[in-house]
């Protein structure tokens, strides 16, 4: 078994299962925070998928994409937190107005 095959037949399925598990949580929710974390997690696992892929195909170029992924994944988490905070504030304001 070559290293590529090992990665392909052992590691990849593990990662694949992880992806699916995370996705399950994404579907289950229940809160938005969970979904956002799931998204973040998916991207991060995506980075590892790409890393493994680049080894299997012997293309280091793909690691650059992993880099970009790492840079950007963070931003969406920030944005969603921003959203949650803003929405929450808005909800509170509305509550107060209703009271």
């Amino acid at each position, binding site marked *: 078994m070559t290293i590529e095959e090992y990665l392909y037949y052992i590691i990849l399925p593990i990662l694949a299962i992880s992806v699916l598990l995370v996705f399950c949580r994404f579907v289950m929710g229940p809160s938005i925070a969970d979904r956002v974390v799931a998204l973040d997690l998916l991207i991060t696992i995506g980075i590892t998928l790409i890393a493994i*892929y680049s080894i*299997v*195909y012997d*293309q280091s*170029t*793909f690691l650059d994409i992993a880099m970009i992924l790492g840079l950007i994944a963070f931003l969406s988490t920030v944005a969603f937190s921003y959203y949650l905070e803003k929405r929450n504030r808005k909800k509170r304001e509305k509550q107060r107005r209703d009271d």
Partner: protein
Amino acid sequence: MEFLLAIITGLLYAAGLYMMLRRSLVKLIIGLIIISNGANLLIFLLGRITKGHPPIIPGDSKIFTEIYADPVPQALILTAIVISFGLQSFAIILIKRAYQVVKTDDLDEMNTIEEDYK
């Protein structure tokens, strides 16, 4: 794999259209985004796909020594993606503006056509 990709592409078109047919403006825009992705994928697929060989001339060589993926569809999609980013951002802001002005997300209420026939 092409077979599955073709199905997925169709699915993207279908889902995009379905979302465009809803009454919510937000869904409409999401629908447009999905269907744009479908079109990109279609270009990609019909330009024929190649695994693991990006169209980048490796290290020290001056021409390709192995097979390579067709760069043309990639360039086209890149252009299309960037353009649709412009359009999408505009569309998303349009949602916002429409909501400010019309006070609804419901497309059926954005309908002053009836005034014509009074």
